């Protein structure tokens, strides 16, 4: 009976994380359309609800009611399994995410490794979708994305190793606490590990398959890539997974390089006292939103990378820099 209650309590906590997250994902899509519209001197969606605020709800209803088309020569089981495999890891990764000091679903001491493992299996959804659709475009996209993700995962893994060396812990909560200091904003890892901060975020953009690294979608070359055969809810799940991953990468960047839930003015003489009452969760949310905004800004600003340049950036530039910084961070910690 106790066991049953424990499991029920965990399920309640999971729902308390996933429901707001899904709402964030829905409104992130609206934010994307609005932000890009304003950057391009347009208005964007403004018909459903006041100033278009109900647009995501309308989109969700539309996608849910649409027919799910199964291509005749597709592998049906894998075709339907692929969207689930892509959203599963995107949601499961939130289990180790600390929302405030001690507010975390699973406070495990290998949190960073767990995150790396989950982001690395997220690629299966796309690869299986590409293969099971039995379509040339989808398959080309799966091959493109697979190679890209494997390349950037290494850079991402190495930059997390640098964070691990600097903080001395694999637990995300302890990584945040390691950034606390009397200098506030300037104690966070973005400053001492500046190149790694940039590499982690850019690799994150590449991992989530967003512009300017979105060759897996490449509308102009391969129609829409891996989800070209998907319709209705199956497509929507891929869409949700992509945005959930973007929010995850933003939140992780905030945790690992921007001090997580710490106040930027902590320890500063006058400002520190003024801002210390704000709960940590608000700071974390603000930081996440700033990083999430960058994703949208990139999409409106940069043209798509050429494929060989993506590979060159990943293998020949990011990985050597991260390896050098592992040595630098090692020296800095030991000496």
């Amino acid at each position, binding site marked *: 009976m106790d066991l049953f209650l424990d499991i029920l309590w965990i399920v309640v906590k999971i729902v308390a994380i996933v429901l707001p997250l899904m709402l964030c994902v829905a409104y992130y899509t609206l934010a994307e359309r609005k932000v890009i519209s304003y950057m391009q001197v347009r208005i964007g969606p403004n018909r459903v609800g006041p100033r278009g605020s109900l647009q995501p709800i309308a989109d969700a209803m539309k996608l849910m009611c649409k027919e799910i088309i199964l291509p005749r020569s597709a592998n049906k089981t894998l075709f339907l399994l692929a969207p689930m495999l892509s959203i599963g890891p995107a949601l499961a990764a939130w289990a180790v995410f600390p929302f405030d000091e001690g507010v975390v679903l699973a406070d495990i001491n*290998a949190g960073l*490794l767990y995150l*790396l493992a989950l982001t690395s299996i997220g690629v*299966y959804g796309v690869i299986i979708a590409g*293969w099971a659709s039995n379509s040339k475009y989808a398959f080309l996209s*799966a091959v493109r994305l*697979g190679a890209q993700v*494997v390349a950037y995962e290494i850079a991402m893994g190495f930059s997390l190793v640098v964070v691990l060396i600097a903080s001395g812990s694999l637990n995300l909560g302890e990584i945040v606490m390691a950034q606390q200091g009397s200098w506030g904003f300037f104690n966070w890892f973005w400053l001492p590990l500046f190149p790694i901060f940039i590499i982690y975020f850019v690799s994150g953009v590449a991992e989530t398959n967003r512009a300017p690294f979105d060759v897996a979608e490449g509308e102009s070359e391969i129609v829409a890539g891996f989800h070209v055969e998907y319709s209705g809810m199956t497509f929507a799940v891929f869409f949700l997974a992509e945005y959930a991953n973007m929010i995850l990468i933003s939140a992780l960047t905030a945790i690992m390089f921007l001090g997580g839930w710490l106040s930027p003015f902590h320890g500063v003489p006058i400002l520190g006292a003024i801002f210390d009452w704000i709960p940590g969760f608000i700071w974390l949310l603000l930081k996440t939103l700033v990083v999430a905004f960058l994703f949208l800004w990139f999409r409106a600003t940069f043209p798509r990378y050429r494929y060989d340049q993506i590979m060159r950036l990943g293998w020949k530039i990011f990985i050597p820099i991260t390896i050098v910084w592992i040595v630098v961070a090692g020296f800095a910690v030991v000496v």
Partner: protein
Amino acid sequence: MTFEKILFYVFSVILVLSATMVITRRDPVHSALFLVLAFFTSAILWMLLEAEFLAIVLVLVYVGAVMVLFLFVVMMLDTDKAAMRAGFVKMMPVGLIVAGTMAFEMFLIVGPQYFGLDKFAMPAPHPADYSNTEELGRVLYTVYMYPVEIAAVILLVGIIAAIGLTMRKRPDNKSLDPSEQVKVTKGTDRIRVVKMASEIKQEAK
């Protein structure tokens, strides 16, 4: 029966079933995907053994990287399934002999006579703050320092050898050199100013 025991049996069944599927499915892509499931399930079993570092690294390295590349190759192969099954009956006796020998050898070395609670006492569960990662790191970088470094060097040699064997320079292959590209100057490399005499407007005929 404790909760962990139930978990152990559930995941063991999944592991054995998926391992069987790996060798019985006809489509190699299905086999590879069942192998992924088998890796994942054995990672969960390791997690039950409190070896969380090994479990997560198994997922990270084998599921996340090795099997992705493996799937790539398998997906792009245009396998002729009929040809793969040809000669099944002819090869069967040899296969059975090899499989039987291997099973017997494994029985001799890692058979049930070496295991059991009387041979190994049940390990005591570790306290909650025990970090498998830290313990492994401590042992690997002190006691097993040389084996770790030698293994790393052997792997590096393997990588370099593989690249050396497969890389060939093809002179007819066109490629861009970004370090040359960024050197262009706007004034002279991209624009050529041509001086010419001004033309006289032709008279309409």
